């Protein structure tokens, strides 16, 4: 009975403490400023939605780094409309069920005017209706899947879409590398792959290349000998592979085993060192496109500066796509607020939508009338000596429907 009482007291103390802290604590932002409503206070609050723990933490942490860098740069230059930018951070622990509460909290407790996030498409889709209903601008710095900006006129994203990148890459493959006959490989249980295949099919048709062979694989497959044998018979100029790096690496191994010297091209689903860890020499020369590559030598001036600053703060590590897009997201929001001369989301959402050819650190950004972003350029990387090296920087154009 005594033990019981001790436990009860212990737990109630913990709970009360947690409750008190939960209710009493002011938004835990970077500057730790007071919790007035954004419109009345002297700070502009921008929320970060993403994971700092759990399986998606690496995306979230990088995005937040970029956002904090942007806020620092803006505040050093005097802030926006005379107010400091404050990043309100949150963490949903990579869990869908917590994401809604996190977003709701930032909107109703911290009174953010805009939220940057989530890096994943799924959680962006969950948060977007909440932002739309509460009239808070949401700018995702990572969502690439379909059906995001369609949710409402407060919803944006600053990522390179496959529908923009793949046609540009296809044009290069067909016209510059002479891929007139192409084998197209799809992983049928992978939504990303199925979607990307559709985009490539259209792009290949537009560029008058023929698909001489279509092969289906599944994520998790290990043996591709049957598919590769069929590809051999059709004798293509190159292979377009829309799946992930694991299958990509193994697939190329089989291609080399059967004595073909073909090269493979694919989307950023293959952007991982695992590609050559599994594929070894077989993936040398394979090409992968991505929206951002840290290339200190050939980058645009603003990107160069960003890379330098990022390296200074992060032990010389090169920034990735998420930190660059997080940086651009905050900069885009700040610019829209300046243009609208207001931090009212219902006003600056319109100026944000008019963003045209903005020179961001992750590339040039234009929002189409349907709020979908068009980013330029796309980086085509090539595996060279078991490393990704930039093969070609390709300018993109708005998708034609």
């Amino acid at each position: 009975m005594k033990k019981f009482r001790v436990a009860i007291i212990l737990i109630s103390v913990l709970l009360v403490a947690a409750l008190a802290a939960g209710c009493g604590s002011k938004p835990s932002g970077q500057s730790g400023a007071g919790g007035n409503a954004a419109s009345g206070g002297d700070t502009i609050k921008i929320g970060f939605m993403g994971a700092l723990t759990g399986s998606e933490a690496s995306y979230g942490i990088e995005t937040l780094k970029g956002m904090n860098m942007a806020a620092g740069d803006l505040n050093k230059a005097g802030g926006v409309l005379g107010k400091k930018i404050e990043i309100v951070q949150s963490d949903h622990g990579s869990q869908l069920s917590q994401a809604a509460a996190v977003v709701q909290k930032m909107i109703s407790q911290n009174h953010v005017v805009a939220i940057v996030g989530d890096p994943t498409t799924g959680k962006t889709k969950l948060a977007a209706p909440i932002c739309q209903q509460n009239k808070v601008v949401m700018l995702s710095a990572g969502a690439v899947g379909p059906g995001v900006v369609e949710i409402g006129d407060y919803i944006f994203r600053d990522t390179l879409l496959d529908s923009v990148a793949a046609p540009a890459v296809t044009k290069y493959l067909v016209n510059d590398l002479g891929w007139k006959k192409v084998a197209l490989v799809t992983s049928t249980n992978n939504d990303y792959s199925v979607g990307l295949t559709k985009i490539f099919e259209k792009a290949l048709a537009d560029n008058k290349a023929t698909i001489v062979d279509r092969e289906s694989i599944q994520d998790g497959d290990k043996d591709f000998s049957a598919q590769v044998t069929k590809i051999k018979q059709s004798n293509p100029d190159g292979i377009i592979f829309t799946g992930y790096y694991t299958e990509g690496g193994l697939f190329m191994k089989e291609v080399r085993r059967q004595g073909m010297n073909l090269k493979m091209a694919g989307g950023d689903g293959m952007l991982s060192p695992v590609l050559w860890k599994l594929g070894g020499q077989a993936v040398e020369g394979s090409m992968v496109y991505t929206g951002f590559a840290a290339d200190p030598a050939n980058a645009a001036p603003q990107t160069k500066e960003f890379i330098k600053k990022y390296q200074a703060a992060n032990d010389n590590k090169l920034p990735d796509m998420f930190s660059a897009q997080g940086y651009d997201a905050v900069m885009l929001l700040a610019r829209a607020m300046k243009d609208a001369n207001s931090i009212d989301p219902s006003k600056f959402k319109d100026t944000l939508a008019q963003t045209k050819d903005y020179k961001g650190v992750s590339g040039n950004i234009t929002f189409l009338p349907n709020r979908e972003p068009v980013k330029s350029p796309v980086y085509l990387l090539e595996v060279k000596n078991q490393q990704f090296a930039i093969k070609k920087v390709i300018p993109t154009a708005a998708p034609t429907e």
Partner: protein
Amino acid sequence: MENWLAGLINPYYEQVLMMVGIYIIAALGLNLITGMCGQLSFGHAAFLSIGAYTAAIMTRNLHLPFIPCVFAGGLMAALFGALLGLPVLKLTGDYLGIATLGFGEIVRVVFTNLKITGGAIGLAAIPRDTNLINVLVFVVLTVWAMSYLHNSRFGRALAAIREDEIAAESMGINAMFYKVQAFALGCFFAGMSGAFYAHLLQYLNPSDFGFARSFDILNFVVLGGLGSIPGAIVGTAVLTLAPEFLRFVAQYRMMIYGALLVLMMIFRPNGLLGGVDFRRLLRRRRQKAAVAGN
């Protein structure tokens, strides 16, 4: 009604409270299966997802009213619960646990590959029909139903099966019949809970209903005290609110949450309210008062 509520309670707290209510419904369902009837289930999230997807597809694609869809979600989950229960409840203990775990994975994989559920991309644009009032009403209904069952002939039969199945059989209780009924009924509540979940989050993804989620719900019940209705409610409330209000400690949040669980199991292995009979406590207090009065 909604506006009146919005003025009274911060939307964030409202969101958290709704989540607690939704989990309470699911936990009470599992409490019926595991707590009252003693059948281990590691697949409760699967029934939650069946209810969630059924109701969501009905309101989203067929534009049916919400409350009937909640019941439909519950019924669909109950149907699958009965179908699974018939072969699987012949197993006992760990074996049953593993069979239900397997079923949970099957459901998740099926939802990932079905077209109507949106596959791995998930199901978005579900109308937001869940509100604090309808969640509260269903929580009250569930609690009432559970306490009614607890003290009924049915509830006593389940308790007999839990304590000793062979003895129960020898007393003329058709154990299989009662076990399947309890399983289906527990799944019915999980399905309803899932329906509310879907219409609160407005987005469903199969990856959200993995083994971890099943385990969460089992945690609620075990921490609260197996077989105790107030226990399941308190356990759910504590374990849902703790991670939410521990947000201020950021990265240490889940560590404290884990420590809380460990402490609990050391000090109260039967759960917070396990083995606590409120009626008996009240009676004893009254007796004491009477003695003191004399």
